[in-house]
Structures are given as C-alpha cells and as structure tokens.
C-alpha cells in the first residue's frame, strides 16, 4: 500500500514536471476534465516507461487505466510488482 502511494506521488510529479499540471486530488477524472488527452496519453505512457523502466504495450492498455491517478498507479504496479 505504501509503495502504491509512492507510485501515485511519482505520477503526480510527472504531471507537474511534464505537463505543468497540478492534479488537485486523486478523485479527479483525468479524462473527463481533459487533463489527459490523445496527445498527453502517448507522452505519459512513454514517460512512465522511461521513468519506471517498464514496458507498457499500448494495445494492452485500457482507456480506464488513465481515468485517475490511483488507477494509473495500479496499472503500473501490476506491471512492476516491486513498485506495487
């Protein structure tokens, strides 16, 4: 659980550093609010792969994985058990 929270913090940091966007809370729907669009979603995946050293094949991702920061963290954690 602690590791999952750490992952959430790191993803939140990516939004600040990469997209100059501060996510107000973990409940924020990243898709409905437009914080993640078709451009950012690709950039985000590439950045996550690089930062966490994981492989995230696009065809295995679901749009719902990008709905909130916690969901995204869970998706990364499934790919990298050591982080989750």
């Amino acid at each position: 659980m602690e590791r999952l929270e750490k992952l959430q913090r790191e993803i939140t940091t990516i939004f600040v550093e990469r997209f100059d966007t501060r996510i107000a809370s973990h409940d924020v729907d990243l898709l409905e609010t437009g914080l993640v669009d078709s451009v950012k979603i690709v950039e985000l995946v590439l950045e996550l792969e690089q930062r966490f050293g994981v492989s995230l094949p696009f065809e295995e991702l679901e749009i719902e994985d990008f709905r909130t920061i916690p969901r995204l963290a869970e998706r990364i954690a499934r790919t990298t058990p050591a982080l989750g």
Partner: protein
Amino acid sequence: MHRAAGEGGVASVASGQDQARGSSTTRPRPASARPLRVVLAGEEAAGAQTLRLLHETGQQVVGVLTGGPGAERSSGPLASLAEGWGYRVWPARRVREPAFADELRSEGVELLLNVHSLYVVKREVLAAPRIGSFNVHPGPLPEYAGLNAPSWAILHGERVHGVTVHWMDAGIDTGEIAYEARFEISPQDTAFTLSAKGVRAAMPLLRQLLEAAAAEPPAIPRQKQRAVPGRYFGREAPNGGRVDWAAPAAQVERFVRAADYWLFASPWGAPRATLPSVGEIEIVKVTCTGETAAEAPGTIGGSDAGGVRVACGDEWLLVQSVRIDGKPSDLLPLLGARAFELR
C-alpha cells in the same frame, strides 16, 4: 501524410520492435554534436514528442508551426508546449507561403521537420533549410502513403506496420527514405494504439537524423522508394464509414478497430449502422465468434456472453459496445430489432 524532396542513395533501416521502442527524450546530446537550427511543423503526440526531443537534446528551435487547417492562430498542446519553452510559434499555414522561405534562410535554418502536419509545404519552403526538409510519415512507404495509414493497415489485416522519415520533395510522401522502422500489429491494436506505437518508433529515427545532420549531413541516407505500386489513401473512411454486414466478420471487426481512437476523435468517426426502429447506431467494440452464420447478413441473433450476435457474410459477430446519439448505450435496442439494414 507528408508533403514534399529528393535524390538517391542508401537508406538506414531499423526494423523489428526492439529498434522501434524507447522514449528518446532524455538521452543527452553527444558532447561533440553541435546544436542544429531547426523549425518544426507538427501536430498531435508525434509533434509534441519531437519538440521534446529537440528541446532536451539542446537543438536551437527557431520556431514551431502548428494549428489545424484554416487556423489563423496557433493553438493546441504543441503550441502550449512551445510557448512554455519560449519558442516562437507560427500558424501552420505559413508553410504555404513562398515568402516564408526567405525567413527560414535569413534565420539560418538547417532542418525543417514536418511531423503529422497536414499542410502541403511549398516547394520554395522545402528548399530553404540548409541541410534539408524531412517528413515523419506514420506508415511504411510507398505502400501506405497519404492519410490515416494506421487505420488502413489494420483494416487490410496487415501484421506489420512502420514509420518512415523521408526527405521531402514536391510530391506527397514520395521523397527518398532516410530512416524507417517496422513493428508488429497485434490482433488487439486499434488505430489509436497503432498510432501511438508509431510515435514511439519515430523518436529514435529522428534522433539518428539529428545526430547525422550535426556530424556529417551528406551521410544522411537517401534511398529511393521501392518501385512497387504505391498506394495513396485519402481522407474518406471506407464504405462511407458504414458497417458492411455482408462482409466477412473478421473484416468488420478490423474496420471497427481501425476506426477506434478510444475516447478521442477518430478521423473516420465511429462505424455506423442503421436499425429500422432506432435509426443510426455507432458500433464501438465487436469480437469475432468464429461461428458460421447461416442467416442473412445483418440479422440479430440474440444476446450472448456480454454482447449481441449479428450475422455477417460468413460468421456471427459479437457486438459488445455501441453509441446512440453520440452517447454510450446498452445493447437493448439491438435486442428489440430483427436485423440491421443493409445498404
């Protein structure tokens, strides 16, 4: 799609998924490489990734051209990114102005990179950069020239797709190839995921181009496109964007994936079909059943395993997700009908 240049030589071909992978935005520029004066004409995720590559490798970005057709002002994610870094931003349509070439020459521009911009670049503008003008095309050439190459590749059942960096000439997507990469198309790929794979594959190619341009421009490969019949694909969706229930189920399934951009706007729109009692329905997700259908194409065969069975030309197809009036809908309207209209 590309727009515009070339002569002959030897191409560097990166092939296979491994070469196509990897974000390229943080590797530092080699100490020996000098910064290049670059103008980027870009859109979409590929344009944004290219600008990050240029920025993070310390290139001198002279300006960024962006904004959809007809836009008087540059806007969108790429414009925001460029402005945030203090780069000049111009409306993309300026590549149509021959006089823009004088501006590029006076600025000492060495490279023009065209990354998913939809404007055809004037010949004078193409010739202005000292080293050359290059297009990043989201498909293999000459097989998939034009628009929406990832969608067409999925529709045609291709197993392998690619991305091509080529010299621009007066034609569209016809210039000599500098670098190209190939990657697999999986049975789950949609237009969106395949496009995203192309973005990932393109960045190492652009890095190669930048390194060669900085070190020894004549060493940038120039390979004439193969003399096989090329295909140019236009803007229009196949079959007017309508599902052809008389086609094989696998073809309908590929059509649905080929138009699928997740929540984002698809250039083809969602595949449409008509139910007599309901009107037009957008078909969002389907799966092949592999079960032979003896009924007439379009016949609705009841619900099954999270979907509704619809007869295609050869087999039953499971329709799993639809939209009505642009909004997600359950599948009950299908179950209340006997068959889709055939057109």
